[in-house]
C-alpha cells in the first residue's frame, strides 16, 4: 500500500514557507518542500491540494495560495464548528512579555548589574538590564559603555562635541573619557526578580 498523502503536513510546510518568504513556492521549491524527487509527484500532490481548496492556479500556471494558506482571513485556533471562541479572538494581538521589553530581538542582550553607581535611577546590583546594541544613544539615555577600556553603566550626556557619563549616585563623579569611548549598548529595560 503506498503511504497516504500527508495533506496536513504539506499544508503546514506551505504555511511555514509562506511565513518565511511571503510568496508561494515554485514547482521546484514545492518538490523540495514535500521531499519528492519528481515533478509528476509534486503535481499530483498540488492537484489534491487544489481540489481541497488550499491552492489555485495563478498567472501562467504558477502556484497560488488561497487564503486558507496565506491567511488573509485570520486563522483562529481550531474549532470544530460554529464561531471561534471570543477569548481566542481577543487574545490574538496580545504582546508577550519578551516582545514588550525587547524592541529588536536580534540586537538585544542581557547584562547583570555590578555596583551601585546608578542606584538613584533605581538600578541596583544584581538587576538585569535589557540592552540594545548598534544604535547611537541620545542625550539622557542610560548606556553600557567602555571608558578608556573600563565597562560601566551611566547616563549618556552629550554637550556639543564632548561626552560625559553621569552616574546616578552622589558618591561618584561624572566621567569624561580621556582616550576612548565605546558604546556597548543602550539600556531599554530593567528587570528585578523577587523571591527566585
Amino acid at each position, binding site marked *: 500500500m503506498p503511504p497516504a498523502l500527508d495533506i496536513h503536513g504539506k499544508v503546514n510546510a506551505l504555511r511555514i514557507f509562506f511565513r518565511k*518568504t511571503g*510568496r508561494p513556492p515554485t514547482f521546484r521549491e514545492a518538490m*523540495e518542500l514535500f521531499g519528492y524527487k519528481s515533478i509528476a509527484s509534486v503535481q499530483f500532490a498540488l492537484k489534491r491540494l487544489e481540489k481541497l481548496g488550499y491552492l489555485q492556479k495563478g498567472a501562467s500556471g504558477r502556484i497560488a495560495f488561497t487564503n486558507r494558506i496565506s491567511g488573509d482571513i485570520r486563522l483562529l485556533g481550531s474549532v470544530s464548528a460554529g464561531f471561534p471562541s471570543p477569548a481566542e479572538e481577543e487574545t490574538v494581538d496580545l504582546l508577550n512579555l519578551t516582545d514588550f521589553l*525587547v524592541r529588536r530581538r536580534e*540586537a*538585544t*542582550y542581557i547584562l547583570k548589574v555590578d555596583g551601585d553607581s546608578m542606584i538613584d535611577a533605581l538600578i541596583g546590583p544584581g538587576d538585569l538590564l535589557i540592552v540594545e546594541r*548598534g544604535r547611537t544613544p541620545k542625550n539622557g539615555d542610560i548606556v553600557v559603555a567602555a571608558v578608556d577600556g573600563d565597562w560601566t553603566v551611566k547616563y549618556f550626556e552629550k554637550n556639543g562635541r564632548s561626552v560625559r557619563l553621569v552616574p546616578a549616585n552622589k558618591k561618584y563623579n561624572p566621567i569624561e573619557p580621556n582616550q576612548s569611548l565605546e558604546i556597548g*549598548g543602550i539600556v531599554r529595560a530593567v528587570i528585578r526578580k523577587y523571591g527566585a
Partner: protein
Amino acid sequence: MNPSAPIMLESFPQAILHFDGDAFFTSVEQSLHPRYRNKPVVTGAERGIIACASYEAKKLGIKRGVALHEARRICPALIVLPSDYETYSMMSKRMFEIVRRWTPIVEEHSIDEGFADLTGMRRFHRCSYEQMGRDIQAAIGAELGLTVSIGISLSKGLAKLCSKFRKPNGFTAVRGRHIHLFLQRHALKEVWGFGKNTVAFLEKFGLRTAYDFIMQPEKWVAKNLTQTQVEIWHELRGKSIHPVSTEEKTDYATVSKCKTFTAPSADFDFVWAKLVRNLESAFIKLRRHRLKAKQLLVALRFRDYQQAGMEAELNRATSVPAEAIPLLREMFETLFKPGEEYRATMVSLGKISTDRREQLDLFEDRVRIEKLEASARAIDKIAEEFGKHKLTQGSALFLQRHPTTARDEQPWRKTHLLPGETTRQRINLPMFETR
C-alpha cells in the same frame, strides 16, 4: 585564449551573496566578553582539541584541530574556553535574521555561513548590490559585534570564492565582466567542491587555475568529469545552477556524535557506555528531524590520537537506538583492545532517509519494532520535560565510574545562571559580561 577577454559583458544578471563569520565561535566570545578582545582565544576546552581559534591565536600558529597541550606550549597565556554552542547558535540565528532584512531568500549553510539571493532588490533598497553587502556587514558588526567576510557574485560557487578572497572582515564583489580576471588568481584547489583527486586529474591536462578550467569547452568537461563538476564549471562561468535554498537543512548526509572524555580510560564498560550515549544522542537528533538511518559507523580514539573504526549496515533503517545496539556491541567488541587507553568514542549514522510509515518486511517482528518505536517516543517526551538522557540505556550506569574533571568544563553561561534559570533552560537572549 586571450586572458584579458571577459567571458561575459554583463555585471550582475543575478547577484548571490555569501557571508562567512570570521572565527565565529571565538568572535562570539570576544563580542560578549570584551575582556577577551585582542587576545589569543580558543574554544574546545571540553574536548581537548581546538574547535575555533581567534585571529590573535591564528597569528601564533594556533589553528583549529590542534591539541590543547600543544597550543598551550606555543602560547602559555592562551585563553582556553569550553564551547558554548547554545550562545553560538543564538548569535548565528541573529546573523541570519539580520541578512533577511535585505532579502527573504537566505540559506543557512552552516552555523557560521550562508547565502543570500539579492537579485532584483536594487530598486527596492535604492542601492547597488555592493552597497547592500556593505550594509549587511555593517549591521552585523554594529548589532552583534561580529565581523563577517562577504562575497558577491553571480553564483554560489563564485560568491564563496569571493568571501574567502579577503578575510577577516573582507569584502569582495566580482561582476560578470571581471570573472575572468578573478579566476586567474585562484588555483584549482581553492574551488569549492574540488577535492585532491579532481585537482590532480585536471593538472594532468596542464590546467593550473580556475580560469584554465572554465576555458575548457563544455564538451570536454562533460566527457571527462562528473555531473557535479560540470555544474561547478557553469557556476564559475557565472551561471547560477544551485539556487539559494531557504529550506531548513534536514537532509543530513550523516549525523555524528563524538565525545572526548577527560582522563583517557581503558575500562571496557565505561568506554562502551560512552559509545552508547553517543548513539542515543545521534538518534535523538535523527528523530527530531524525522529521519532514520541504515548505516552505522563506529570509531574509537586512542590516547595518542590514533583511531580505529569500522562501519556496518543495519538490517533496516531505524530511528531507535535499541535496534542498533546489538550491531554496535558486535563492532565495539571487535574494535576494543584490552589494555589500550581511549580518549574518545564516535558514532556516525549514515544512509539517512525520511522516516515515513512504510511496509514492513515479511520477516520483521512487527510488534517488537512498534514497541521500540513507542519507547523512543516516550523517551523524547520525557526529555522534553526533564532534560536529555534522563531515561537511557542501562549502560549509562557505568558512566559514573569516572567522574568528570576539569576538562569537562562548563561554559561560562552555564555557571552564571540568572534567578529562575536552570542548567537546562536559560533565557533566550545572549548575556553580555562587562567585567
